């Protein structure tokens, strides 16, 4: 019991550290309420607007009338659909600063008009306080077409996107898989480790203005220490106390909610970007695909890290011990492996990797308080696809999921892309519950 109390104290201590670290971060430092749409001064209206037009074959401007445009806030709390007027103009009043997505349905376009880039039927803008923005849908006359070489161009581009996304999922998910493998714990708070990494890096990079690379490194270290602390302070005492795995699963849900809202409290509900590597348009041309340096770096770093992890698992003492514990905990214990210590390492490594994944995800997309939680189900999908508990399985499964999510937009609307991945998750569980690389359980 006293151990548990000590654990609780350690946990609270950790939260205090989390809190103070974030205290100085933008939301805490800003004017109170400034980041909340509901507390905006009235009368200070903000708009997302645009004009729908294209040049016909003779080069004349043609305006598209009567097309529906939907503007949605990132958190889904605001959504409005308007129709363009005879001059192709449309505008939507939005409730406050934040990230908004304007989208049109390409199928509703007149016969002879198409999107120049089928991917760009939904455009995202970030509005600062009081700011209005215009967004432009790139239209062209004639069929854009989903067939022919255009299709393959898109497929190629999406494959690169998918690979990048899959690698990020993999880095985040290895910890999830290894923790499950060594302890049997299904950690519903793993997404928060991802967010934590992204936020710590944000604090150093944006609030303190340190270089991105250094900030990322710090985030990884802080993440690893946090993981270790959570293992020592919470899970280990609970395990000693004899708390069942299902109870622990529910506890991870509670802890996850707690941490998420601490993040929201401190960081605010907004999406933000890192200070470095944001605007990149020039990049490496590979056939139809242009890879900007940031993405290339993300892919290379991910690959490098994953190879390093694989080598470490294969060659180092602690790596072998991790695999042994994941394979058969009792056997490992009886052959003299200090399982608790190994589990501690797994938590540190898993959390560190998740933090790195968070930073990469923040670079690839943006940073917000819910980013890890949104990724959680995709991580589960990857991990289960590959066979939960195995490190290599998580890797392969995640990459497949990443590709799937991106490539599915060739056929389905982008907002449904996660549905495809989740359906695959369910189908895999039905067809082969042990995953691609996993083993069946025994009865009796």
């Amino acid at each position, binding site marked *: 019991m006293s151990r548990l109390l000590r654990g609780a104290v350690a946990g609270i201590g950790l939260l205090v550290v989390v809190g103070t670290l974030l205290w100085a971060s933008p939301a805490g430092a800003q004017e109170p309420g400034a980041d909340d749409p509901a507390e905006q001064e009235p009368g200070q209206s903000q708009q997302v607007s645009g004009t729908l037009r294209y040049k016909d074959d003779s080069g004349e401007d043609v305006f598209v009338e009567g097309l529906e445009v939907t503007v949605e806030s990132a958190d889904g709390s605001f959504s409005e659909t308007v129709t363009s007027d005879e001059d192709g103009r449309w505008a939507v009043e939005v409730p406050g600063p934040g990230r908004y997505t304007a989208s049109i349905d390409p199928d509703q376009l007149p016969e002879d008009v198409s999107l120049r880039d089928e991917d760009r039927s939904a455009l995202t803008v970030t509005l600062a306080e009081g700011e209005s923005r215009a967004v432009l849908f790139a239209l062209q006359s004639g069929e854009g077409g989903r067939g022919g070489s255009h299709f393959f161009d898109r497929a190629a581009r999406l494959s690169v996107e998918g690979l990048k996304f899959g690698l990020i999922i993999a880095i985040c998910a290895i910890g999830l898989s290894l923790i499950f493998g060594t302890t049997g714990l299904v950690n519903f708070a793993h997404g928060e480790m991802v967010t934590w990494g992204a936020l710590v890096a944000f604090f150093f990079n944006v609030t303190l203005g340190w270089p991105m690379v250094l900030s990322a490194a710090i985030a990884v270290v802080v993440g690893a220490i946090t993981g270790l602390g959570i293992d020592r302070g919470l899970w280990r005492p609970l395990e000693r106390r004899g708390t069942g795995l299902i109870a622990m699963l529910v506890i991870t849900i509670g802890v996850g909610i707690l941490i998420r809202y601490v993040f929201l409290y401190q960081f605010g509900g907004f999406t933000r970007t890192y200070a470095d590597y944001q605007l990149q348009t020039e990049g490496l041309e590979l056939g139809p695909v242009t890879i900007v340096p940031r993405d290339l770096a993300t892919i290379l770093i991910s690959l490098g890290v994953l190879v390093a992890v694989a080598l470490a698992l294969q060659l180092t003492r602690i790596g072998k011990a991790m695999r042994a514990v994941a394979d058969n905990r*009792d056997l490992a214990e009886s052959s003299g492996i200090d399982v608790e210590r190994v589990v501690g390492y797994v938590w540190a490594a898993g959390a560190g990797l998740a933090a790195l994944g968070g930073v990469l995800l923040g670079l690839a997309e943006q940073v917000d308080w819910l980013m890890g939680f949104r990724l959680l189900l995709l991580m589960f999908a990857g991990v289960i696809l590959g066979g939960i508990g195995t490190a290599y399985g998580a890797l392969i499964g995640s990459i497949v999921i990443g590709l799937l999510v991106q490539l599915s937009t060739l056929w389905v609307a982008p907002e449904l892309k996660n549905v495809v991945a989740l359906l695959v998750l369910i189908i895999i569980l039905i067809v082969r519950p042990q995953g691609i690389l996993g083993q069946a359980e025994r*009865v009796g």
Partner: protein
Amino acid sequence: MTETTPSPNTGFTRIRVDAFEDVPEQPGARKPDPILVVESLTRRFGGLMAVDVDHLEFQRGAITGLIGPNGAGKTTLFNLLTGFDKPNTGTWSFNGRPMRGLSAHKVAQAGMVRTFQLTKALSRLTVMDNMKLGATGQTGERFFPSLVRSRWRGQEKAIEERAEALLERFNLHHMRDEFAGALSGGQRKLLEMARALMVEPELVMLDEPMAGVNPALAQTIIGHVRDLAADGLSVVFVEHDMDVVRTVSDWVVVMAEGRVIAEGRHASIVTNPEVIDAYLGRHHGTPLDPAEQERQLAEAQAEIEAELEAEERAREQEGA
């Protein structure tokens, strides 16, 4: 067979023993009246052939001991026969009825009930509820009838009486309203056996019913196993202790590395060079598989803890 049987019903015992008179003591031997017949059954785990049985018959009304070194495939064979696992190849029939592909609950309903090596007491149900659960064909277990008490009250009463009698017999009656989780390890083994009998099976398959039980209780369980046969049931049980096997079984089947390597009466088994080889020869000098050893130790440990706890509870109750 020379042992004297303390069973009250010696008539049955004689008939049972006689059944094996003309049976050759070799693997796959035909029995005069087999209740369960296994034909070319295999189960593979990756590269490991866990079960590979050409032909095996179990005699009706007899107690058959199934022995073999750890990892021989005994539990896996049980799992296959009772529908808990699917074989790669093979068929088997129970009372002449083909059983392949039947799910576990259908197998049990057909009259073939098994217990588990790691005891499965339903902890948060009372001992009595554990027992009642065993009864088949209950109206009250169907969804809509369950809502109307009058439809199942009578049957429930009858089931309860049967359960009382069995609990009496298995010396668990004083625990009838306790949660099963409060029972000691040995008591759980008893409960699991008694519960299996509630199904009114023809064949009971006991996976190590005496493992991790103190010698006195083991004797009691041996007595129960004998009584089952005396009542006309057929019994197959897995056991590692050769003394126990000698005292209870009419016939012994030996497995090693998935195969049946010998069959016969106890006396011929212990002198069979193949068997000695399986137990000692090939594994000579190799200790127990560490996982298995660990498991057994853990089981024993749990046992001791449960016993201590039960004692403590008893003391508390006295104090209160």
